[in-house]
């Protein structure tokens, strides 16, 4: 162990991760105090001490904290899925939604809304519909791109994009024939929101995203080898078929769960990995964790903006991630020529 600790690179990485972790915690704390009623940080601590009785306590624990925790988990999961897919496809334009998983999830939710499952089963039916839709698409894309036991990377991408188109057309079809109330529900859901009344779903999301982060590290070195190309990874003794299948399923599950809990929040999975790659380098052993943390912090900030900027009304968080992430992305892209 002492030998490993002398490794300069490792020390640098630990500093990065610790720094990012502290930054995300600070963002979380600051965003906890921002809102229609501003609660200074010392009052947050006071509210924690005084227990359930105060108004501040209710605002913090029932309204703001769940969103921040969900933002952490969803932002982390989407960026992680983005890094994994970009690394696997060696294509900087791939994001978690490219493979049609969001389309499947959205279609599932649309059908759930139109069929009136909220009235029959309750609100929890929507995430379940979304998740079933996402899983269905994952399986469809997976089995369509497997030929003779070999997962064709380019086939995977094309099938995913096509399935994505088909499901968005089907969503339009459903929207065209549904009434105004349902339409509103569908639109609101497709734009994404971190408002989630079910603690169980929030906990599930946190659990899945952290497990995902842990498991992705088992394949971090393989992802590095993949950056030389699939054949080169094979020459380095990587079982490429197993790695591809596993990483596809892992990133799909992360995306599927995120989509079904919080709708379609675009851009996090595409832009965050790019930023992080620029700052920490393209070694996946540091990239995975840093992207997770940066995505988490980014989404928490975006959601805080979304719920405060036109308060008491609320903007869909997807709008903020798109505008903020997109313009930052273009700015950085124009500053440095290479991606």
């Amino acid at each position, binding site marked *: 162990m002492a030998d490993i600790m002398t490794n300069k690179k490792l020390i640098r990485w630990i500093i990065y991760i610790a720094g990012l972790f502290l930054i995300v915690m600070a963002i979380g704390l600051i965003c906890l105090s921002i809102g229609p009623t501003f609660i200074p940080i010392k009052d947050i601590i006071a509210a924690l001490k005084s227990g359930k009785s105060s108004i501040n306590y209710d605002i913090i624990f029932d309204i703001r904290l769940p969103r921040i925790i969900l933002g952490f988990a969803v932002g982390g999961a989407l960026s992680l899925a983005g890094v994994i897919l970009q690394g696997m496809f060696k294509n900087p334009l791939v994001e978690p939604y490219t493979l049609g998983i969001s389309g499947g999830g959205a279609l599932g939710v649309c059908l759930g809304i139109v069929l009136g499952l909220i009235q029959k089963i309750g609100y929890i039916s929507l995430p379940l519909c979304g998740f079933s839709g996402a899983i269905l698409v994952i399986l469809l894309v997976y089995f369509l791109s497997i030929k003779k036991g070999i997962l064709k990377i380019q086939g995977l991408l094309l099938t995913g994009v096509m399935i994505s188109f088909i499901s968005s057309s089907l969503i339009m079809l459903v929207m065209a024939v549904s009434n105004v109330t349902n339409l509103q529900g569908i639109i609101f859901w497709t734009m994404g929101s971190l408002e989630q009344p079910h603690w169980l779903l929030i906990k599930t999301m946190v659990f899945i995203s952290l497990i995902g982060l842990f498991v992705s590290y088992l394949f971090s070195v393989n992802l590095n*080898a993949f*950056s*030389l190309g699939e054949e080169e990874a*094979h*020459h*380095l*003794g990587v079982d490429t078929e197993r790695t591809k299948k596993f990483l596809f399923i892992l990133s799909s599950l992360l995306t599927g769960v995120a989509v079904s809990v919080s709708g379609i929040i675009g851009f996090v999975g595409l832009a965050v990995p790019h930023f992080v790659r620029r700052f920490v*380098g393209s070694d996946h052993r540091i990239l995975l964790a840093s992207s997770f943390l940066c995505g988490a912090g980014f989404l928490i900030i975006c959601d805080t903006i979304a719920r405060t900027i036109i308060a008491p009304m609320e903007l869909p968080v997807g709008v903020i991630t798109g505008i903020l992430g997109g313009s930052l992305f273009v700015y950085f892209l124009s500053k440095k020529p290479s991606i």
Partner: protein
Amino acid sequence: MEKILLEINALTCGYGNKIVLNGINLTVNEGEIIGIIGPNGSGKTTLIRALTKLIKPVKGEILLERRNIWEMDYKQLSRKVSVVSQQIESVSMSVEDFVLLGRLPYYKRFQFIEAKEDIAIAYRCMELTDTITFRDRSMEEMSGGERQLVFIAKALAQEPKLLLLDEPTSHLDITHQIKVLDMVKRLNRDFHLTVIMVLHDLNLAGEYSQRLAMFNNGQVYKTGTPEEVLQYQAIEDVYKTIVVVEKNPISNKPFVLIVPEEARRNSKGKNKFDKFLRGL
């Protein structure tokens, strides 16, 4: 008696239904440099791919140290056989990190940080290939020749018994061609490293290989020393091109000269003119 490292017995393989190699037999002794030559599409690269388990034989077997390579897992094989491919995509990573990737086959199951020993071996491989001074530079800013040296350093970091080189000198200027091949020769001499290299340049192949295997239409046309294989009849038969084989005055190795169409016509014309003069 030389020890046999690799035995290819009646190997038939290809892509899907298309058979590329048809009944190949080849034996490679430990510490040998074998050059594989042959026209485009004769199956040279396919052989390299078969040797690394990228394609499965339809018939026949490949034995490495008397063990069928298909009985080894990918990691085991990559500790014995390493490859320098024709084209590796350029990546944004430092030379040191790139060479360290060659230690991947030695990582334990849940290991994802290289150990001190891995770093030491990577440094040694960079020293052997004269790339240690570039270790902090990005792979993207390296020239083609320097990059090829780094690729070899990575392949050496795998500590292979058998090094496969697929056209290691294509796209290189003569300085780097000679530098790369001299280095291969040095590694072969100093570490008894066995090398199979696919080369397009017949002269480089003849100069640097102890034995040549000439491929034609997915079969081994001829094997033997450079002098035995590089004969004008064989080359003209396989490549369908007229050549003249001379001797390199310094190394005494065969030297293949090509004859362009125009020169051929001119020489014929000259002969006719000579006859005409004699007739007078």
